[in-house]
């Protein structure tokens, strides 16, 4: 949300003093966040009361973020970030795709069971399972049981779609 760099950087060897590009991106993102805070605070009307208005705290936090952006930038330029192992972006994207599917199904009124089943199958595939059909069956059974347990037993309201209305 606040940092915006792509996963999957190449591994770095320890003690390398090169510039860490991901670190620079983090520093820039922090600076941008500080800017957003200042911009948002500037739109608030000045307060008439004694003491601090609602805009004071965002400014304080923005100053802190700006200082930390500088600190992070120095660390990144010196290559002082802890070493990272290589990361595989494919499973990450697969899980995020599952989450996107879940959000879309909930948003379109597809209901809890279909939405979480989609996430289940996507996550399972991200962790290396290739049996999509079997996993879909497992997911549907599992989420239906969860739905029944929480919606009927604990009276927690979970969104209902076509499948839930059959129950």
């Amino acid at each position: 949300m606040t940092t915006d760099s792509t996963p999957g950087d190449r591994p770095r060897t320890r003690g390398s003093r090169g510039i860490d590009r991901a670190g620079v991106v983090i520093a820039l993102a922090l600076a941008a966040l500080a800017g957003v805070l200042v911009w948002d605070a500037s739109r608030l009307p000045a307060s008439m009361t004694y003491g601090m208005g609602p805009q004071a705290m965002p400014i304080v936090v923005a100053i802190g973020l700006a200082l930390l952006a500088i600190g992070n930038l120095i660390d990144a330029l010196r290559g002082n970030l802890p070493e990272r192992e290589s990361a595989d972006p494919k499973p990450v994207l697969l899980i995020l795709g599952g989450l996107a599917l879940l959000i879309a199904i909930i948003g379109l009124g597809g209901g809890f069971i279909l939405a979480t089943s989609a996430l289940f199958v996507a996550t399972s595939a991200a962790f290396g399972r290739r049996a999509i059909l079997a996993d879909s069956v497992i997911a549907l059974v599992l989420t239906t049981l969860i739905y029944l347990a929480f919606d009927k037993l604990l009276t927690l309201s979970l969104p209902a779609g076509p499948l839930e209305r059959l129950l």
Partner: protein
Amino acid sequence: MIETFAALAHGMAVAVQPVNLLYALIGVFLGTAVGVLPGIGPALTVALLLPVTYKLDPGGSLIMFAGIYYGGMYGGSTTAILINTPGESASMATALEGNKMAKAGRGGPALATSAIGSFVAGTIATIGLAFLAPWLVDVAVKFGPEDYFALMCVAFVTVSATFGDSPIRGLTSLFIGLTLGLVGIDKLTGQARLAFGIPELLDGVEVTTLAVGLFAVGEALYVASRRHHAEEKLEPVRGSLWMTKEDWKRSWKPWLRGTMFGFPIGALPAGGAEIPTFLSYSTEKRLTKHPEEFGKGAIEGVAGPEAANNASAAGTLVPLLTLGLPTSATAAMMLAGFQQYGLNPGPLLFAERPDLVWGLIASLFIANVMLLVLNLPLVGLWVRLLAIPQPWLYAGILVFATMGTIAAKPSVVELSMLAGFGVMGFLMRRFDFPIAPVVVGLILGPIAESQLRRALQISLGDPLTLVQSPMSATLLAIALIALVAPFVLKGLGRFKASED
């Protein structure tokens, strides 16, 4: 003294009501079952189980929380011993020796010394909590808003900067949390901040959404991204579960010493259980009569840190209950549990709802006993939970993680925030930013702001009010020292690394 006994007895009367005993039992069971899953620490256990307690009455659900809290801790150490993936840094010391013991076929005694040590430490520390709390409440009622603000500054600094690996990265996490805390309608003036015209953001960022996103979704993404590195291996529990006479002889002193480290450090706003567990580990390493076993599975190295871990968990409840000050991610989640019912822990809660507070404290004793009685016989069940194949395990975790948000607020915005926090948690893990300060910042930031503004309103805008109260001046000085110290003494933050 006598009042404490009376209050505690009253709390016991609340806690032993059959329905409350049942809640404690369910809490202990669920807490252990979820906490045992690899990669799930106590904070996430509490966050995931918050929706389960949604519809209960506050008393019953807080009692369930006591069970979940202790159960989650116990589950975490089981995972650390059997597969060497500590769910949280506080179990790292346990994993060092415990996993070696399991590999050598002594997993049973390792689990036993950790369970019994947790019981001993938890009981002593809960007694400490019961006697320290009323005293602290007496001090806290005299606190003005400026004192509270100063106290929160101390907590901010110690949680993020003083004891971490890098003060810069810790503070960065804290300020991200503070930023998230600003989102929503300002309580004093009704102005919307950082809402960008999105109505869902006016209520602010939900603590559970943040915690579940950072911990559960972030962890799943992180583990998935590095699946190609190493497969974790589950050690079967071979041989006897019971400790020999020799094991007992080598365990009881580390239990007590670990408690002595854990409780005071946990009770101070000093940021969680890492410090006492590692202090305990290095102390046992120094005092042991079997130095050759350290690094190869010494029982002292499990007994001490486990006791320290549990004692500090009870210790963090002291500032949480008496001052409303969470000093670890788990404590922050407990606070979110209170807030779910509109309850604010602090001196007022002791005065207004003694049944609730003392019922909770009494339930901690009961949860402790239940854990001891239940968990060793049930260890076979926990081991089976650990054997769930990774794809289904993480798929199930994510289904549960999203279910909490779907149940609370089934909106596209809220779920997108969950996913966004998940990405943030993934990046923070990848770039080694600590996660607890974000949660603490989100929860404490708005409280600190309102205390500061109240203080300045009372003083008619004079900022000197912050240093005119001796209490607040002292606390601010402590915060300043704790902030500057790690930069001055660069070695301070590194003592953890030198321990292994």
